């Protein structure tokens, strides 16, 4: 077997080891490079910046633990911006496993800003099954009735005067699935609410048509999107921490693709010349 053939059939564990080094080393070294903001992220940031204090927005954390590294930093960054501006956040989730994640992040970020859990600045209602996304457009109080701590929604200060989506300025869905389309289709189309999404990297390219058509007012895409948002709110956290490793990983993949193709073309030429 030639050297090239041996390289191609190398034990994959060596490749895994190289991947591990590429991810761990920049993290240990804390490699940080300047972050350039992309237009969809900037659009969402400006949209929230334009909201007056005491505005209400819906933040729907429609994700589960498998997408936490990408979407949890987005939740944190959005909550920090909203709490700093005095924007009131209605937290919910359309994913049953998002309930525990949502309550954790909302309480944690609220503590950073010394915001009490009394329903004045934020409310987390958790998960409700079924076509909730339709029902909140008609009567959000009837749909959820109580918050996560079983308090009557009507008794909470930020829910006074709230009946449905008309009292909310913006709906943001963070999801690793196609739930974002449902937000665009129902609250976005039927109730003409402004919609923004935060999605995992895999779905980013699919949502660009909705940005171009104006059906989305902004989009955060993957870990980079979260890092860009942290950069904009000037509070670097987990997303920015991970970008050094992300850079190294991408360079590694590019080099592996190039190396694999070089070996392939050299072998092909050798075979043809024989």
């Amino acid at each position, binding site marked *: 077997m030639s050297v090239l053939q041996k390289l191609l059939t190398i034990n994959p564990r060596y490749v895994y080891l190289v991947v591990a080094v590429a991810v761990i080393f920049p993290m240990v070294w804390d490699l940080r*490079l300047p972050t*350039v903001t992309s237009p969809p992220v900037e659009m969402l940031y400006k949209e929230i910046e334009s909201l007056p204090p005491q505005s209400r927005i819906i933040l729907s954390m429609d994700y589960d*633990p498998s997408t936490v590294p990408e979407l949890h930093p987005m939740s944190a960054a959005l909550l920090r911006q909203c709490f700093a501006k005095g924007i009131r956040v209605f937290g919910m989730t359309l994913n049953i496993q998002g309930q525990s994640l949502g*309550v954790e992040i909302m309480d944690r970020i609220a503590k950073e800003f010394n915001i009490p859990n009394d329903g004045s600045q934020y409310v987390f209602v958790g998960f409700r099954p079924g076509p909730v996304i339709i029902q909140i457009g008609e009567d959000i109080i009837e749909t959820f009735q109580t918050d996560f701590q079983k308090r009557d929604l009507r008794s909470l200060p930020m829910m006074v005067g709230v009946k449905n989506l008309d009292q909310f300025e913006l709906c943001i869905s963070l999801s690793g699935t196609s739930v974002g389309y449902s937000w665009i289709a129902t609250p976005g189309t039927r109730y003409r609410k402004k919609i923004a999404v935060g999605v995992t990297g895999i779905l980013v390219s699919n949502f660009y048509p909705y940005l171009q058509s104006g059906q989305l007012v902004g989009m955060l895409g993957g870990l980079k999107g979260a890092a860009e948002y942290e950069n904009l709110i000037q509070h670097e956290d987990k997303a920015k921490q991970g*970008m050094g490793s992300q850079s190294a990983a991408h360079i590694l993949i590019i080099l592996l693709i190039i190396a*694999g193709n070089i070996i392939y073309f050299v072998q092909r030429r050798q075979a043809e010349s024989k």
Partner: protein
Amino acid sequence: MFWQRQFPLVVCFVLGVSFIIQFFVKHPVIQSDVINEAANFATIIGIFALVLGLYSITRMHWMKIRHRRKDWFFSYVLFASLLLMTLLGWILGVGNDTPFQWMYMAVMVPLSSTMFSLLAFYMASASFRAFRAKSFESTLLLLAAIVVMLGRVDIGPYMFPDTSIGNMPIWGVDEITNWLLEIPNTAASRGIGLGIALGTLATSLKMILGIERSYLG
């Protein structure tokens, strides 16, 4: 026979057409109360599907234990963790500072996240062994992938920033990536999305009209 095969199709048709019509009826009772109650009805009906799923997983693992099939011991682990989580939630509650939440953060989150993170290693291995620029189309795909991979991390714009030759601006990798995503990618994604939407519409109409009956089993 009518009640077994035809009447379910009639039910599907009536409900399907009713809810298409409700979109055009702007009466507040239809738009609010009827939709709300219908949504709650759908939720209650859907809950019973969980029973089927639970039965399926329980039966599968019980048979594994009973017949001592390979790795039967782990079926006990599955049942133990299932019961523990269920009882913690039912007895001690599901709030933020409960044992249920503790188990979720200590067990479910790391397991779920790590399972999916293994894919990064397999992707690296596949990049080396399988991704070949064998044709014009695959070369184009790989080039677009490389540009996006460089443009969507911090090191890309750092290594290849926007620059200029004289008065002529030269786009850096970040600008090229933005353009790729906003124009060719949007165009193709829109075309594919339109195709999917039309296909979904056709399938939904076929189901409502009773032409597509596979969901009846």
